Every structure is written in C-alpha cells, then in structure tokens.
C-alpha cells in the first residue's frame, strides 16, 4: 500500500513538474507577441525632441510637434508672469500655482491640447489673456489654466528640461 502511494507521488510530481515548466515556457513565448505592439525603437528615438528657443522674442510663442502632439513654448512678458502668479487659487477649477507649472517663470512649456475634447486652443485669445479653444469655448489664462468653459483641468505640462539656456529638451 505504502509503496504504491510513494509511486503515485513520484508520478504526480513528474507530471506536475512537466506542466509547470511547460506553462513557464508558454508564458515566455507569449511575451514577444505582446511586446511587439509596444513603441518600437525608431518611435522611442523620436520620444524626445530638443528645441532651440534662442529666437523667441518676449511675448511670442512657438509650437513644436512632439510625439505627434503640439507643444506650446511661450516666452512670457513680465506682466503675463505677474498676472499668472497673482491669481487666487480658490478661483481655479483646477487649483495649481503658476510656480508649480514652470521651471523658469519666463518660459511656459505645455501640451497645446484642450483638456475638454482635444482641440488645439488659439493663442492670445480669450478673456484671460491666454488661450481660447474655439471648439466648445474654454478659456485658459497666462499659465495655461482653465478659467471658464467646459475643460476639466489645466493644459498638461510635459516632462522637459533646460539642456542649456538656449535649448529645451522635451520628453
């Protein structure tokens, strides 16, 4: 009786070991099929872009394409900066301090996509001296924050850094 029990245990172990190790192999095989849909290395190479900002005058902005989306880079005037900094956070639908949205207060770098339904807002328009989205009437201030209209949150700030005083690297 005991002998056949031992034999059964060895047999079960053999079968269980085979199935388990087999399952691991199947899992490992499935991964490349899934990973091939992730961004490939040529897409990832364009995941960051460096922008020369030396030609932008105060009060002017440029729009660059980054990861297929528009990014506004605005060189703000002193009055635009003070306007942004002096807003009472209680007035904001999405309270954010201007200082938290910029690295150097003169430069505003943000994704030019309305957070309502994705249109590209127009610059130097709207009641708050910032941007106005013509699709459904959202108004953004000089810090890109939503002040009036259906957009739920402020325009997104992407990951960026100053490589030097003339160059911003986005992404």
């Amino acid at each position, binding site marked *: 009786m005991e002998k056949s029990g031992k034999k059964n245990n060895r*047999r079960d172990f*053999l*079968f269980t*070991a*085979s199935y388990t*190790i*087999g399952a691991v*192999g199947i899992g490992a095989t499935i991964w490349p099929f899934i990973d091939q849909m992730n961004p490939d290395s*040529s897409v990832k*190479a364009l995941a960051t872009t460096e922008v020369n900002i030396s030609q932008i005058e105060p009060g002017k902005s440029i729009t660059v394409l980054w990861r297929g989306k528009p990014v506004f880079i605005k060189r703000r005037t002193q009055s635009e900066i003070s306007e942004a900094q002096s807003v009472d956070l209680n007035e904001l639908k999405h309270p954010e301090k201007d200082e938290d949205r910029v690295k150097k207060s003169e430069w505003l770098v943000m994704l030019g996509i309305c957070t309502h339904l994705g249109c590209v807002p127009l610059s130097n328009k709207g009641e708050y001296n910032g941007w106005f989205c013509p699709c459904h009437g959202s108004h953004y201030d000089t810090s890109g924050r939503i002040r009036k209209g259906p957009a739920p949150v402020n325009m997104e700030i992407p990951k960026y850094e100053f490589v030097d005083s003339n160059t911003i690297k986005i992404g």
Partner: protein
Amino acid sequence: MFKKNLKFSLIILFLISFTNLFGADKELMKVNWSFKGITGKFDRSSLQRGYQVYNEVCASCHSMDLLSYRNLGEKGGPEFSVDQVKAIAANFEVTDGPDSQGEMFTRPGRPSDKFVSPYPNVQASMAANGGSYPPDMSVLVKARKGGADYIYSVLMGYEEAPEGFELEDGVYYNKYMDGNKIKMVKPLAEGSVSYSDGTEATESQMAMDVTTFLTWASEPHLEARHQIGLKVIMYLIILTILVYLSMRRLWSRINPEE
C-alpha cells in the same frame, strides 16, 4: 529495423555528397570570426574601428540607408556612448523640410536620423561610378553567399591578373569575385586609416574590422539572438526530458513490460 536504418544512412550520405556539387566555389579565405558559433559575440573595439573604416573609406560611395546613427549606441553593436553618437551624427548634414517657406534645408544630424547617403539616388550613384552601382551595405553580408568570409576574401583578393586575362578600363582582377572581375578599385592599403585607438592599420586588420562592422550592420541583434537561443534550447532539452519521463511513466500502464 536494421534494413530501414541502413536505407536511412545511405540517403543521408547521398544528401551530404551533393553539398559541393554545383557552382564549384573557390575556397574562401577563412577568418576566426568572434561572432561565429552558438556563443558568438561581436568584438566591441573591432566594431568601432570598423565603423571608422566604413566612414572614411567606404561611405563616399556605399550608402547604408537602413541604419540610424542611434544604432551605433545600442546594445549589441559598437556601443559608442550617448555623447559620441550625438557627435558622430552632428558631423553629417541632413536634408530636412520643407520649412514654413516651402524650402528644403540642411541641418546637422541627430541620433534619430538615418545614415546620410553619398548620392541622392541609385541613378546618381551609377553615373558617378562608371555605370556600376556600389551596393548599399545595410544587409550586404547576408546578400552574398559566404557572408563575412566572402566580404573579407574580396577585400583581400585583389591580385595581378594572370597572363592573357583581358581586363577593360576601370575593371580590376579579384580572385574571389564571380568571373574574377570587379569594378571597385582596391579600397584598402596599409595605413589607409589612422585608427583612433592606436591599432596598427594593416590591410587584413582593416578588412577584418570593416567586415565585422558590416556583419553587425546586417545582423544588429545577433548577440541577443545567440543568448536567447542558448537559453531556449537548454529549456527545451530540460522540458523534453521531463515530458519523456512522464510519457514513459504514463505508457507503462499500457505496456507493462516497458
């Protein structure tokens, strides 16, 4: 059973006997490539020297359209540093545009750019090279029978034509080319390149380095392929043994004498 095995062996021998039957090939020069064999890997410094040879000697005529500068920094290749790759790319003028005026313009290269071609198109390349097209080198090593050995042999195979062998203008004698004629002038000579790592630039050294580089260019994932392959085969062998034992155990119920 024995008869069947005998027939099998005869067939296998028959098959093997045919391997050198047609197109009796010239024996190619053989090199002990570091990337051959199941554990083959590229020699990093050889790849970097090879890139230098490609860039200084070959790139004036041969494009490498499918490679990007960033490939020079990726794992499994020459593995130049991020800054070195940026510097290499910036050495080249890349056509971009159109700008807001509708004009094309040039700018310094970036790592994401493809290798700049010496000619704008195949026709320009042929016109500049006596009607011959210097082939693009992105997959050249895979596009020639003999692979790396062939490329190396051709580079080292320039010789004096034998007595009476007719050579037209602009055609040279090469021991390993099909028909022994090649329209490329001998590209490598002692000291053609002054290696930045100080290695002596003999002909065979440069030929070896550039061939290694070209092999990587054709197969940039060779090292990953070998590493993963080894693991996969080991895993399969282990699993096969386990399944074999399970199968025997299972079938012992049916064939008790086993």
